[in-house]
């Protein structure tokens, strides 16, 4: 699965998620990716989120909408990412990851799988990583 979230200079947010599924999945099985609120969700009032991971569990907690709910409650995008992944594991033992951008441009991400490839770009600063704790930085 792949995804992107962004905020533009007018304060508009957007999100997109796309997947090629799971090897040997049942014909017709659909995961979280195309489900609005699960695989992705955004609202200019709060921000945008895109999810990846075990689709059935992500759908059970509507992960991306849950991230925006937490921002609505006053959490930062990073705290919302952290709490939403924690919540998914606590409630359904779900594993996966999420990327977030707030409507003011603050960035967040988290995952509880072994790895997640991620990158962010803001103020000409590129950050990226793969393993837990990675945060490589370079100028763009």
């Amino acid at each position, binding site marked *: *699965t792949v995804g*992107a979230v962004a905020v533009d*200079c007018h304060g508009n947010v957007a999100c997109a998620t796309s997947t090629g599924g799971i090897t040997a999945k049942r014909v*017709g099985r659909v995961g979280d990716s195309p489900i609005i609120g699960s695989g992705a969700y955004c609202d200019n009032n709060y921000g945008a989120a895109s999810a*990846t991971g075990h689709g059935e569990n992500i759908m059970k907690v509507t992960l991306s909408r849950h991230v925006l709910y937490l921002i609505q409650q006053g959490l930062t995008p990073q705290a919302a990412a952290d709490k939403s992944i924690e919540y998914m594991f606590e409630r359904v033992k779900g594993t996966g990851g999420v990327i*977030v951008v707030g409507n003011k441009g603050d960035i967040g991400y988290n995952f509880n799988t072994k790895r997640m490839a991620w*990158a962010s770009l803001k103020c000409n600063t590129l950050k990226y990583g793969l393993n837990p704790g990675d945060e490589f930085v370079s100028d763009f």
Partner: protein
Amino acid sequence: LQPAIVIHGGAWAIPDNFAEASKLGVQIAAKIGYKILHSGGSALDAVEAAVCSLEDDPVFDAGRGSTLNEIGEVEMDAVIMEGSELRAGSVAAVQNIRNPVKLARLVMERTDHCVLVGKGANMFAEEMGIEEVSVDSLVTDSARHDWEHYKKFKVTVNEFFCSRGDPHD
């Protein structure tokens, strides 16, 4: 407001032989999206372009790097959404197109619906003039090898992923 973009290339136990290509692919996608934002483009155009880049990169499980289902076909899903009016479009179990995210955007912009699936999604793609591509162009040797492994040992999806502790789409 300073524009910003964040990308992911999937959360799972990414093997070492995919690690460097995965890191590079997400950086490229971020740069593609950011260039659009930096030149005054919309967040919607930025996320679409970034995801198209990832769909075109066979290291990622989307578009050209898709997996095969139990009968050896490709079924892809995608969604796109914008935050000003909460408009959204998505496609599910769509086959034989290169960039499902582009089709999702067309669902959002050219129909009164939010989701099109399966045969209906493919009929809509044809109506929109989207080129049909072969299954072979969407599946890597690695994905085909994984599928043959499943067929040979008849491991269910849940058994396999639970044993590795990294279930993922």
